[in-house]
């Protein structure tokens, strides 16, 4: 197999090198890629969409149809992870469980059919439980709000600087994952329930596709944001800019929740215990 791999990789490489000779040089301003379609984007974006960040404009307006499916890809990845990994333990109540008394650090074992301790002072733990490091815990908790504010900035400022829904969404998701890693999965799940994650993920993409459908219902083509002009009370060009913002928000929600969802399932192998 090793030899076969070498041969295939080598043949592919030689073939690609052979073809690459015909390519334009690196960063050649006269290359077809730089002269055929892209100049239109660079020169017309501002007047057609009033978004200075051309990448955002192309991403969320000219090629917004692609981007909608991009968001869908991440959504489907999250759903697949959930679908493949998640195990619903119906018999959980009948299994042995461990509880830890937070104040004293005493751990008790509840045997099959036993009752859960009534007090709030007990927290559920796994048998592989390791005490959390206080410093990491505290610092992470402190960082989370800042991370999230930055993420919102990235989402909102995507029109003018590098950023947008995907980037902002990933940062938002990271904030939650940081929490999950520094504490444990159960803590995060208490703040952001599985159901909420699942529904928000769908809602995020739905916001995107729904905007498109709204344009369609308003009589224009799917995702043609200029149809939103009468609703938003602005001109068609500005409406495009606003439309981009709406879908970016949708993307941000979807990406954040998808990241969290994937993390939840993969880190706990689908049984939603402590996680990593």
């Amino acid at each position, binding site marked *: 197999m090793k030899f076969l791999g070498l041969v295939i990789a080598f043949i592919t490489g030689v*073939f*690609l090198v*052979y*073809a*690459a*000779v*015909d*390519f*334009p040089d690196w960063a050649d301003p006269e*290359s*077809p*890629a*730089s*002269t*055929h*379609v*892209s100049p*239109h*984007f660079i020169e017309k974006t501002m007047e057609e969409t009033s978004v200075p960040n051309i990448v955002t404009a192309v991403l969320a*307006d*000219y*090629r*917004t*149809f*692609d981007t*909608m*499916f*991009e968001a*869908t*890809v991440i*959504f*489907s*990845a999250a*759903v*697949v992870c*959930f*679908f*493949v990994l*998640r195990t*619903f333990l119906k018999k959980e109540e009948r299994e042995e469980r461990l509880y830890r008394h937070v104040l004293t650090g005493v751990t008790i074992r509840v045997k099959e059919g036993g009752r859960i301790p009534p007090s709030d002072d007990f927290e559920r733990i796994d048998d592989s439980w390791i005490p959390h490091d206080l410093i990491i815990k505290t610092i992470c908790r402190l960082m989370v709000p800042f991370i999230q504010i930055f993420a919102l900035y990235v989402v909102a400022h995507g029109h003018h600087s590098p950023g947008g829904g995907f980037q902002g969404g990933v940062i938002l998701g990271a904030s939650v994952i940081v929490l999950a890693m520094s504490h444990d999965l159960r803590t995060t799940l208490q703040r952001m329930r599985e*159901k909420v994650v*699942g*529904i928000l*993920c*769908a*809602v995020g*993409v*739905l916001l995107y*596709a*729904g905007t*498109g*459908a709204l344009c*369609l219902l308003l009589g*224009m*083509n*799917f*995702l*043609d*944001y*200029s149809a939103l002009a009468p609703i938003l009370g602005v001109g068609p060009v500005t409406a495009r800019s606003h439309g981009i913002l709406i879908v970016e928000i949708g993307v941000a929600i979807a990406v954040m929740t998808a990241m969290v969802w994937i993390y939840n399932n993969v880190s706990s192998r689908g049984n939603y215990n402590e996680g990593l």
Partner: protein
Amino acid sequence: MSTQYPALVVVVPLLSAFLISAAGWANKRLCFPIAVVALAISTYSCFGLLVRVLNEGVVVYRWAGWDPPWGIAYYVDHLNALVLTVVAVVSLINLVATKKSIDEEFPDKLGPFYSLYVLMVTGCLGIVATGDAFNLYVLLEISALTGYGLLAMGSKGRAPLSTLNYLYMGTIGACFYLLGIGYLYIVTGSLNMVDIAGILPSLYQSKAVMAAFIICMVGVWLKMALFPLHAWLPNAYTYAPSAASSLIAPLATKVMIYVMIRLILTVFTPEFAFTTLSVSNAVVWLAVIAIVVGAVLALQERSLKKMLTYVIVAEVGYMVGGAWLGNSAGMTGAILHIVNDALMTLCVFLAVGNIVYKAKGHCFEDLQGLFRKMPFTMGGFVIGALSIIGVPPTCGFFSKWYLISGAIKAGQYHFMAALLFSSLVCVVLFFRIIEIGYYEPFSEEHGHGHGHHQEPSMEEAPLSMVVPLLIVAAGLVVVGLYTGDIVEHIIRFAIPKGLA
């Protein structure tokens, strides 16, 4: 509304996927109706679109209102419209037919299942409809990712493993396609298929274009499981849940064949593919080998489902070979076979689904006496089998007819021989199954003189599974009888005039 048909075809299932996923958390019983309604609307739109294309010719839909090549546009012509309709119909029928088995297999994951199902269909529909090379890649990945999810939920252990292998291969295939598109982009500066086709003729001698073509083709062959790149397919389909395999087996490979034909016909033009590059003969030989190997490997299998997956490998050879014969009869055969093979694969896989549902297995031993127990299911299976063998008036015969007559016209007699060989092997394959199902496990003292023995009672699958199967089976014959119309009014227009 009719101007929005191209949008509705894709968008309605897409939206419904999110709704289903959200609804799955609230009330699981909502998922199925939403999916059915969405796919029904999509199917209706496909038919509407087909009618429009028949009346008006190519339908262009500009997404977000931008003109191509800057925005993304759909160019729906006869070829797209036909395949779209087939994809939509197949997925709708399969959805209805497999409800019971889905309910049984994933009682607590209905939401994600239907969501993925509908997304998979959306991906396939999008691939077929789109006129943008990069958009095709994204949709390819959607249908692939959701497909992995659906396939992985079959038998424990084997299913995830073989799906993971499929994932490696599928990702490489998609990446190759992406790379090929990158090559095209670097020499043309465009991603729009029609635009690229307009620029390419002056570049036919470029090595980059040749490389782009070959890389795209290799990618697509990987995804359609053309021999020798087929290794992922049999296991992935065999160990999958029935509902998933009966959706993916008819659609995934066929959609990729559509992509190949689209690349040849629209993006690179047949002239380039068949004349400038002199690889047609080699590809036809490859197809011949694929057919023979698929057939022979199918003979070795002792599991019905796995046997059928090797038949798919052989069928891929049919279509690839037909398309690469380089004449209009072969191309007609390949396109017609996309339609027919999708339907007949659906038919046999639905039958297998019913058998698995009742007999709890798909090995040969599980099939004994099935004609008595499940006469309607087996009836449907037999019709599907006859179509795969190529017995008139089922549709499989007519596509084979065009393929063979294309082979004769092109002088590629080895392709004709391979087709006949695989037909004969299919006779053996399917009659072996039929024989096992026909003869009862108890064989002594049977026959005359014992007329009043207790006949085992019928244990047919539920009506909601049998009726769709029979509809598909009847559809095989109906499509067969309407072959003339399909070729005359649709496929003829899908083939460029230049093709002899």
